[in-house]
C-alpha cells in the first residue's frame, strides 16, 4: 500500500474534482483513503469547510462506514471474509491461523463481510486484491510473496 502524508493542497484538488458537491462526500472519502490511507481530524475539518457541512456531519459519515479508517493502517491490509459461505469452508480456522502467523507484524488484519467470491471460499483480500480457495498454506504463500515485492 503506497500512500502519502496528508496534504491540504492535494485534498483540495480531490474535493474540487468532485465540484465540491456535498453529496459526493462518500466518494471523496474513498479518494482520501486511496491517497492518504486514512481519514485524519485535519481531513474532517477541511472537508467540512470546503463542502459547507458541519464537522459533525462529516464525522458522522466517516464513523458510519467500515471503509473509512481513522488511524493509519499497517504496511499491508489483510481482510479475511467472515461471512457464512466462507465459514462453511473453514474461514474461522484461517482467521486463527492468520492471527498466529502475523502476530507482531505491521499488518492490519480485519474481518470483511463477503467479497462475492463465495464459490471459491475461503476468500481473502490483501491490499485490495481478492484471493480465492485460500488454504492455510496458500495464505502463507500469498503473504510471503508480499515480502518479496516489499
Amino acid at each position, binding site marked *: 500500500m503506497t500512500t502519502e502524508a496528508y496534504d491540504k493542497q492535494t485534498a483540495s484538488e480531490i474535493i474540487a474534482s468532485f465540484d465540491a458537491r456535498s453529496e459526493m462526500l462518500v466518494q471523496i*472519502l474513498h479518494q482520501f483513503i486511496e491517497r492518504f490511507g486514512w481519514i485524519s481530524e485535519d481531513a474532517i475539518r477541511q472537508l467540512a469547510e470546503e463542502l459547507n457541512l458541519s464537522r459533525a456531519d462529516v464525522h458522522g459519515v466517516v464513523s458510519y462506514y467500515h471503509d473509512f479508517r481513522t488511524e493509519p493502517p499497517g504496511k499491508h491490509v489483510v481482510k479475511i471474509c467472515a461471512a457464512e*459461505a466462507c465459514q462453511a*469452508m473453514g474461514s474461522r480456522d484461517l482467521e486463527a491461523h492468520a492471527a498466529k502467523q502475523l502476530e507482531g507484524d505491521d499488518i492490519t488484519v480485519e474481518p470483511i463481510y463477503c*467479497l*462475492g*467470491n*463465495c*464459490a471459491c471460499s475461503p476468500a481473502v483480500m490483501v491490499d485490495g486484491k481478492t484471493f480465492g480457495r485460500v488454504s492455510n498454506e496458500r495464505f502463507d504463500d500469498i503473504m510471503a510473496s508480499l515480502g518479496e515485492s516489499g
Partner: protein
Amino acid sequence: MVTKVYVPRETAAVSVGADDVAIAIARCAKENNESIELVRNGSWGATWLEPLVEVLVDDKRIAYGNVEAGDVPALFDAGFLKGGKCDKRLGAIDEIDYLINQDRWTFWRCGLSEPLNLDDFRAHQGFKAFEKSVEMGPAAVIEAVKKSGLRGRGGAGFPAGIKWQTVADASGDQKYIACNADEGDSGTFSDRILMEGDPLGLIEGMMIAGFAVGATRGYIYLRSEYPLTHKVLSKAIDLARDSGWLGEDIQGTGVDFDIELHLGAGSYVCGEETAMLESLEGKRGIVRYKPPLPAIEGLFGKPTVVNNVVTLASVANIVNLGGEKYASFGVNRSKGTLAFQLAGNIKRGGLVEKGFGITLRELIEDWGGGTASGRPVKAVQVGGPLGAYIPAEQLDTPLDYEAFIEIGAMVGHGGIVVFDDTANMAQLARFAMEFCAIESCGKCTPCRIGSTRGVEVIDRMVAGVEREANYDLLVELCDTMEDASLCAMGGMTPFPVRSVLKYFAEDFAVGTDE
C-alpha cells in the same frame, strides 16, 4: 494465423490465478512463435472450473478447466492452440452440461462476448432492445415488463412493472434510476458476474428503464468490496458515453440518459433501498421510514426506480423477445429465471440461471455435485444472512418465492450456501445476531439493541446457563425484532436464528444446566 485465446478477467477467476495464466500464455506463445489474440472475457459462471481458458479452433471454443500458470507450458506441448488433448481439456464450451442445461436469459452474453468491446456487444444484439424500446414507446415497454412477471431480483421480489408504472405516473421535474449493485449477501455473486461479464448489458437495461419512466439520470451504487467490477464498469460507462450511447440525444433518438457510478463503503445495510439512497446522497446509510416509497420520493426527494442489477439486465431480452416469453419460464407467481448461486461447501460452485421451480436438491446435487468435503449436507442457507437455515430433509422444496415463504425461508437474491455435517449451527445462529449488531444502522431499537442482547442470550444458552429460560427469552426477542424493526435487517435476522432453534436445537446443548 492468429489464434483467439480467452482467459476471463472476472474476480473469481482472477482470485485463483487467471491473470498469471494470461501472462504465461502470452509468454509461451511468444517463445513458440505462435501468434495469438488474448481476449479477456467475463466468466461463464462455472466458477469451479476457473481459471477456465478457451481456444477458438474451427469456430469452436475449446475449453480447458482449472488451468494454473504452471500448466501452460504443458498445454502448449499438448498443442492446445489447436485444441489438443490433455487432462485439462473439457471439450467445446457449448457442450458442457453445467452450462447448456441452463435457461440463460439474462446471463447469455456472460463468458461469450467481450465485456469492453462495443462492436462485439453490438454484434451480440447490444442496444437492440433500447432501439426497439424507443420505437415501441414508454407505455408499451412498461406493459411488456408487467406481462413478463419480472419481480425484483435483489431479494424483495416486488413486481418490476408496477414499480416502473408508479414512477412513470409520478409527477416530478427530475426522475432517477438507481441501480442497486450493493450485493452484500453472503453466497451471492450474480450481480458481480453480470457487471464484469456484460457491463454494457446493465447499462442498456438502465437506459430502457430511464426511457420507460422518463428518467434522464441513473446511478449505480456499487459495493466497494468489488474493485475489479468497479474498473470494468467505469470503463464500460466511459465507452458508452464516448460513443454516444450515454448522454444527450442518444444516437439521435432524442432520449437523454447518463449514468454516475458511486461506490459504497462497506456497509451491509446500504443494500436496503432507502439506506442506499441516503448513501448516494453522501450521508450515513440510515434507513428511511416508508412511506413515502422511493418511487414517489426517492433520491433527492424525486421519483426513483430502485432496481437490482439482475432485474435491470433482464429487461433487454424482455423487450427483444416479449414479456410472454419470459413468463413462460418459472412457476406460479415466480415467473422467469433466477441466477442461482451455488456457494460455500459445494463441489461445483458457480452460477446457474434456471427457471423458478427447480428444487434445491437438483441444484445442489445435479449441478453442485454435493459438498466439497464429500460429507453429508447438514443445512443450506438460501437468500443471504437473513435467510433461514434449511435442513437436509427440506431439499425437495421448489425454488419459488411463495413456496419458500411457506417453509419460513426466502429465495432472496438466489444465493445458496451449503454446510456439511461439521457445521456448528449454534455458532451460526450467534453469528446472525452478531452480524446484525455490527451492521445495524442504529435507527430503530429492536435491531440496534436486540441484536446485541441476542448474542448474549445465545452465549448463555451455549454455556448451559438457564437454558430453558434463555430459550424462551430468545424466542421473545425474535418476536420483538421481527414485529418492530424498521427494515429487513432487524426484521429478518430472527429467521436464521429461529430456524436453528427449530431444526438444530441439539447444537445448543453442549454445556450443562446449572
